[in-house]
């Protein structure tokens, strides 16, 4: 499959601060590509440059054959954008919002009407189409926000953390919509800081941190980086000191890494069952009570931890 989006060494500086430090990747036609990274990693800044909102400080990207710096108007016609923060007119109804945005994308007449009805169906808001957006729940607003990005059937859809702050049910619906759209042939660039979403949706994942793309590949390729390692997660009491315990874990021979995330200690090891006894002993020696222990298969979270020494979410 050929690339529909190529990013070449994009850099974005806000005054002295470099938010995106030269990232390069490409997205193949028909795939869902996830940019996975914690808060402040530079996901939104990247999307803003790709969608021609911000001019890159340097570097370039081509989308559907058009340069974002030289042919922004052509790029805009090829992309649909679902911004991280809701961007809707709350005093207009869902239908009015969709009609207006459809017009901004050059639709009109009966094709606009038909398309709006189609999209209302897709986002499951046909019944509520006549209500003002301000009366909607967070999840419903998110769906309208997505609907706006779909109106002109873009070749590439940018979705910037579309599930932040909503209930599990709406989240489920949104993830299913993304998969549906992709099945119909839409290429999707999806940003998230939820590892599970990246795992469920994407064919390939780019991990971004502090403005740098620190890993890119299929999930298999990425998890291989952590080797066959497993993750052991210990939950300890609120009043205990996890740092000292984590340091102690590092002294265990089979432990590759031990990191503190709040009241959890995550231990990466080639074999969880072999270190389990030693871990519990260390805790007992210090009189620290373990509430529970989870054993996890290698996942993207572990990859991130492995690469950065930090958790995706803090």
């Amino acid at each position, binding site marked *: 499959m050929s690339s529909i989006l190529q990013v070449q060494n994009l850099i974005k500086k806000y005054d002295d601060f470099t938010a995106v430090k030269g990232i390069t990747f490409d997205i193949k036609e028909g795939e869902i590509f996830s940019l996975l990274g914690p808060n402040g990693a530079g996901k939104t800044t990247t999307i*803003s440059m790709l969608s021609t909102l*911000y001019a890159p400080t340097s570097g370039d990207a081509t989308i559907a054959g058009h340069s974002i710096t030289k042919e922004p108007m052509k790029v805009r016609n090829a992309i649909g954008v679902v911004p991280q923060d809701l*961007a809707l007119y709350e005093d207009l109804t869902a239908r009015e919002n969709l009609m207006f945005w459809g017009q901004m994308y050059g639709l009109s007449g009966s094709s606009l009407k038909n398309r709006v009805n189609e999209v209302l169906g897709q986002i499951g808001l046909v019944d509520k189409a006549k209500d003002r957006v301000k009366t909607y729940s967070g999840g419903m607003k998110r769906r309208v926000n997505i609907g706006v990005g779909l109106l002109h059937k873009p070749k590439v859809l940018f979705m910037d953390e579309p599930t932040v702050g909503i209930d599990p049910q709406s989240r489920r619906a949104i993830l299913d919509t993304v998969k549906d759209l992709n099945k119909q042939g839409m290429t999707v660039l999806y940003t998230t800081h939820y590892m599970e979403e990246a795992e469920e949706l994407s064919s390939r994942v780019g991990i971004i941190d502090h403005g740098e793309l620190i890993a890119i590949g299929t999930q298999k390729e990425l998890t291989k980086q952590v080797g066959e390692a497993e993750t052991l997660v210990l939950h300890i009491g609120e009043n205990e000191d996890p740092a000292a315990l984590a340091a102690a874990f590092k002294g265990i021979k089979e432990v590759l890494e031990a990191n503190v995330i709040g009241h959890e200690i995550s231990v990466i090891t080639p074999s969880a069952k072999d270190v389990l006894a030693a871990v519990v002993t260390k805790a007992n020696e210090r009189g620290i009570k373990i509430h529970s222990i989870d054993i996890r298969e290698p996942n993207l979270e572990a990859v991130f931890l492995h690469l950065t020494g930090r958790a995706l979410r803090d």
Partner: protein
Amino acid sequence: MLKTFLIGIKDLRIAFRDRAALIFMLAAPFALTLGMGLVTGRFNGGSSGLSNIPVVIVNLDHEQLGNTLVELFNSEDLADLVEPTSSADPEAARLLVDDDDAAAAIIIPEGFTRSVIPQAGEQATEAKIEVYANPSRPTSAGVIKAIVDEFISRVDEGSVSGQVSIVKLLRSGRITPQEAQAAGTELTQRLNNDPLDGALAIKLNASTADGEALKFDILAYLAPGMALMFLMYTVSYGGRSILTEKAQGTLPRLLVSPTNSMQILGGKVFGIFLTGAAQMLILIGATTLFFNLKWGDSWGVIVLVLAAVFGATGWGMLITALARTPAQVGSIGSAIMLIFGIMGGSFISIENMPAAVQTFSKITPNAWALNGFTTLGLGGTLADLSTPITALLTMGSILFLASVVLFGKKNLVQK
């Protein structure tokens, strides 16, 4: 172009759904007009706000028409409105005006009657009535000028076409159909057979003038004053929506759609303009309907409204270009609304203000537009509005240019 239009319509729709905005745009000016109308006694047939306007009349004509005009000013109908004095010396009369002892001086030149009604065998000479107006009392002087204009136009109509004049008088209810018939026959006969006997027609016109059109309805001053003050609210509300759209993400979203920034800014401006125009026209409609207020010549009203909204929109854009947040636009906007409202004459006639304020009022769209509405209320037409309309359009254009420059320096994209 189309997108600009669509963005404007969208903003109009949003403004008219905002209950708080509707209160300021429509309810407040309407209620204040009503309140001030009650206070001034407009609704129980009390006096009008303008009364006893001092005017000096110099009658050098001493013939029929000149005398008729003097009589008109001394007539019972105008007794409340004007306080005429007479003088024999034009220079002395002008001096009275210069000293602010009179709102205007009317100088009827020698031979005025003959210039209109030539004597047999005599060449018609040109002689025009001069109204020497006091610039610091534009409204009062406007009233005087309107009365004289009305008189002159009747004289002209009388000498050119008796028919038109009669139809007009009939329509405005100033003469009864019976009178009209008689007068019409007489006039037509006169114009056809005896061009020398014009005085009769003039006399008829002047004496049947019941002064109604000349009386100034205080509401014709209050209602536009209030509407214009709250027009300033509307334009800052519209300006604020530019920054609100930035904050709520719809502006960035527009910018990543295939719509260029000029279309977007144009659309926003058009939206402010549309909303302001809708507000003004609704207020005009409502006061006409409920207060039986006559705003005057429809074309004049429409063009003046558009010019006033244009000038005010310029201010809205400038405020927006200077402010950083929507809240700032709101507070600067409210301050300007009040300052312009007061200085622009919405509460107290500009004439009664100190000279410095009168000068300052020239930068307010309120003062210019109010001047125009007063002219219309006194029976003026679009043709009499060239000064306020030119001023408003110039004001709007300068402010637009300034705000485009300021907007260019300001980054509307990034937070």
